């Protein structure tokens, strides 16, 4: 004990360290105003994609909902009426809901989907005061008709979406430039899906 009580040297050394750190570069990213670059294959909020002609890709097959380990997806399929087609095939999703509070963002729904309809975007800011607001139905999941087709899963963008704000100039933990499609798995998926994508 005597040794610890009189260890003035250690105290001085400690004071020196804290003083030095006062002038060190701080790694803080001031989040709401500046955002950190996420990893290339980051899983965020879902999106239902469209074909170039504006038709919905989803055919209401419920494969995503059976693949989902968290039981977050509820799909109710229905027949397409020939005069007002919603999707190209026979069937469509009459209702499509994802409970983002149940979702664990595993991406299995995206892998299960035969038409690349459901994909995960890098968006992650979904906070709300009401529980109900986390159940996303088709009106919020579908890409708006004037916003293109949505992003194919193999070509998921690496940057923060432009409307989400300023990105921090901190090095990301992953190589941002290489991205999703350059990985081996991405290449395989791409070739496998060639025939399906319309």
């Amino acid at each position, binding site marked *: 004990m005597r040794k610890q009580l009189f260890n003035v040297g250690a105290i001085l050394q400690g004071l020196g360290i804290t*003083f030095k750190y006062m002038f060190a570069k701080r790694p803080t990213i001031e989040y709401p105003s500046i955002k950190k670059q996420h990893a290339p294959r980051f899983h965020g909020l879902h999106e239902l994609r469209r074909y170039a002609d504006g038709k919905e890709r989803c055919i209401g097959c419920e494969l995503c909902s059976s693949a989902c380990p968290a039981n977050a997806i509820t799909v109710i399929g229905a027949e397409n009426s020939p005069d007002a087609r919603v999707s190209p095939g026979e069937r469509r999703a009459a209702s499509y809901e994802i409970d983002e509070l149940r979702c664990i963002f595993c991406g299995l729904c995206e892998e299960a989907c035969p038409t690349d309809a459901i994909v995960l975007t890098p968006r992650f800011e979904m906070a709300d005061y009401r529980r109900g607001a986390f159940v996303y139905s088709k009106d919020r999941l579908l890409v708006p008709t004037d916003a293109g087709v949505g992003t194919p899963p193999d070509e998921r963008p690496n940057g923060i979406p432009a409307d989400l704000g300023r990105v921090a100039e901190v090095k990301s933990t992953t190589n941002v430039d290489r991205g999703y499609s350059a990985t081996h798995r991405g290449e395989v998926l791409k070739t496998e899906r060639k025939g399906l994508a319309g």
Partner: protein
Amino acid sequence: MLVIFVKSAVLLLVVVTTFAYAMLFERKILGWMQLRPGPNRVGPWGLLQPAADAAKLILKEDLTPKTADPLIYRLAPFISLLTAFAVYAVVPFGANGDGSPWAIGDVNAGILFLMAISSIGVYGISLGGWASGSKFPLLGAVRGTAQMISYELSMSLSFVGVLMLAGTTSLTGIVNAQERLWFLIPQALGFVIYVITAVAETNRTPFDLVEAETELVGGFHTEYSGLRFGSFFIAEYVNMLTVSCIATLLFLGGWNAPFGLTLVPGLAWFVLKVGAFMFFYMWLRATLPRFRYDRLMTFGWKVLLPLATLNLVATAAWVALH
């Protein structure tokens, strides 16, 4: 009479503003030392943070536990606050050309008044903790009382060396006696003892066993909320300012300029020295972990007290021989 009132009001304002910004700077400095930016959201550079904190404290609900002694529970924060502010009645901040000090009252036993008032401050802590009627505050109060008694002894002894060298108990007289040489140099040991005991007296890290967030959940003020908690909080920072002022007056030459740099006014030197001491306080808080209780006591009684006595005897011998 009126002059005294105006002086007191101005001083009160200055002390409260200093408290508010000492708190902000403490959080900033702690942040920097821990690689964080510190508060920076309210106002430019976080400068309005104290106002936001004050508004929050005022709006909070004021709770009194069922088991509390209602009168003493309500009284305790004011004892802390009053004694913390009362000290400034005798603290001089500078001197006119004719040697009359800038203080509300020029008491010729200023240092004794200071010690008397500041030892009443512990009543706020012990009564508050006891009257809360719950276990953590009681433990905090008991610790606080024991700690104050143990460390006040060594603190007083470290003052006596200075008093002997200066030959006066007037704070102005002590500062004037340091015109050529700060007491920091002949009383180096006394200064070290004072710095340590001052940290203990104001219950700050590494001697914050009275609050001890991790074990006592805030210690003596666990049950307090709103402005009553705020009073304790203000008292802690004002006490910190007080011990910094005392250190400056007794050991760092008060408003005397070092190295004959008399171009800079005395008040600026005073503020600078007090500021440096306050910074040292925050620096300590960012660096050192809390003492264990038995070590605190061992250190106080078996190390500090003998050292303070030794310092006293040595100073007395030196004064007697000259």
